[in-house]
């Protein structure tokens, strides 16, 4: 297989008394969708923020296309070509949609913002995502939760990234929008991007992910090829035991246990 575009090893991160990540490793190849799985509080969002430079790691190394790099600030990650959609959305409520889409990467000529160019590009981008939003010049505070999520996703695509990280991108979305985001993830993969997807929805993960990387209590707890792995195996890795609440419930209610993790 090709060289990983992004490879982490020995990542540790501590918040006060909480060791959120210990010695975590992760790699993503171009054209691969890696699902990052784990229970609530397992450290998934923390790992994403480490990679994105929002909360840099205490220790550990990061290889980008084989070269060691340091990501100390969000701008470092953006320059490498890492785009991030955060779980706690990172939009400025007082700015309009266009301003939010281009935040930190505004187009300007001779120091003056190119509002026309940005609005047209924003319109094209949102149209290509089939998003219907009445006006691009309303503050994002007036949008619904799902619309805000789509804006955040759209924003990450503007910078021509090589790796896209999505932290629970479909949690707030309707059926059609969820399908669109999954389509989008497949398109990104087909274009040769590396995708890191965090989701609690096993159906979504099975639909698009090539590999599943499980975190448990801030440590690596398994790395599976999704095709060859059963649902039960992944759940066991997430919960840390073959005897877990999901298995017990499946035995009790005899529901075909394949929907939610």
């Amino acid at each position, binding site marked *: 297989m090709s060289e990983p575009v992004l490879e982490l090893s020995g990542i540790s991160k501590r918040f006060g008394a909480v060791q959120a990540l210990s010695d975590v490793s992760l790699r993503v190849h171009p054209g691969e969708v890696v699902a990052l799985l784990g229970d609530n509080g397992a450290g998934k969002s923390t790992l994403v923020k480490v990679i994105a430079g929002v909360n840099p790691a205490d220790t550990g190394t990061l290889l980008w296309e084989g070269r060691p790099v340091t990501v100390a600030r969000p*701008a470092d990650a953006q320059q490498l070509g890492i785009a991030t959609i955060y779980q706690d*959305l990172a939009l400025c409520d007082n700015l309009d949609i266009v301003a939010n889409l281009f935040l*930190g990467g505004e187009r300007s000529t001779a120091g003056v913002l190119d509002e026309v160019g940005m609005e047209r590009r924003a319109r094209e981008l949102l149209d290509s995502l089939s998003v219907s939003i009445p006006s691009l010049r309303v503050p994002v505070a007036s949008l619904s939760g799902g619309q805000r999520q789509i804006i955040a996703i759209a924003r990450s695509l503007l910078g021509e990234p090589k790796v896209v990280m999505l932290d629970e991108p479909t949690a707030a979305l309707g059926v059609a929008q969820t399908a*669109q985001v999954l389509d989008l993830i497949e398109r990104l993969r087909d274009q040769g991007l590396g995708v890191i997807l965090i989701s609690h929805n096993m159906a979504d993960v099975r639909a698009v992910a090539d590999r599943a990387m499980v975190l448990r209590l801030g440590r690596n707890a398994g790395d599976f090829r999704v095709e060859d792995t059963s649902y039960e195996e992944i759940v066991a890795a997430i919960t840390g035991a073959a005897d877990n609440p999901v298995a017990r419930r499946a035995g009790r209610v005899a529901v075909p246990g394949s929907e939610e993790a």
Partner: protein
Amino acid sequence: MAQQTPVAGEAAPAPDPRLIVTGSSPRGLVAAALRRLRGGELGALPVIVGLIVICAVFQSLNSNFLSPQNLSNLTLQVVSTGLMSCGVIMVLLLGEIDLSVGSVSGVSGAVLAVLAVNHGIPEVAAIALAVLTGTLIGVVHGTVFAKVGVPAFVVTLAGLIGWQGAQLYLLGSDGTINVPYDGAIAYLTQTYFVPAVGWGIAVAAVGLYAGLTLLGERRRTAAGLPAKSAAEVIARTVLLAVPVFGGVAVLNLWNGVPLAFLIFLGFVVVFDLVLRKTRYGRMVFAVGGSAEAARRAGINVDLIRISVFALASTLAAVGGVLAVSRGFAVSQSSGSGDVLMLAIAAAVIGGTSLFGGRGSAYSALLGGLVLGAITSGLYLLQMDSSVRYMITAAVLLIAVILDAVSRRSRRAHARG
């Protein structure tokens, strides 16, 4: 990227049916304006209405109020605090406050007078050094706030006391330094333009506004984006032209347009353009809206914060220089008393939100004129400071209440 891979075969969606489209007829424009008002987007309307009411009341009490001489005086009187307000607005947009602008204006005035009078440095150089003093002070405030993490309120409160102390120290035992009546310093507020120049500036300003707006809207239309109709552009141009030409006509009846007022207007216009049209301005709004979102977008939040505090203190220093120019002197009381209060009040009365992320540079002009009109009117009526303080406080309270209520109303209309 998504551009290269559009969702197969899907045409661009039709305009969203929920979007209320307003026609370009006069009735449509009025309806749109009313809807914005109800949604809590008051803009400059309350302050303009307030200004008209205040002028009408004082004019009915004393017919000298709207005389060219009094209005000319008024324009000079608002310049110094107005410039400070301009800086305060930048800080308010960040969602912070700067309590030191009065003291910074005072200490800068003292630096100016000490250098020019006591040390005989050329006045122009002394002015530059006084303004630079303000900039450095602002960098210190901003750095302590952004890098050390001390709340801006506390940093600038320390500045309020500390820089006033520095001012007293610089002025020494005399306490007052007079500046010459015929130098560059005095020139700033003693210069008036002959009528033709005033008219020329007015025509150029309105013409530029109309031309650039039309050009911008044409570019939007050409790009297939929603644009303002020609009727709306004309209506806006007329709304701008009336006060501009009216103001020049009145000022020309007295000495002409004062240089100092033009300096103030120049700062307001430049700051407005910087805030609305440049990347820097966009970053200031972004940090004021959500500092964490701005940081994740790769914006250097610390740098923006430091630069804004530097700008605020720089403008306070410019205001201090103009105050010295107007009074021909700097004293121990320069920049103290109600100066700070007026500078912050003008910004808020002008419509800049105390909650950060919303406002415009024009607040300094409109709010400054409201407070200046009150001061001037009460002076004509021979009321003393006690009444002025109480009325100013009431106006400020009304403005803050409007700010809070319109914020709530924006919430109700989902406009954070």
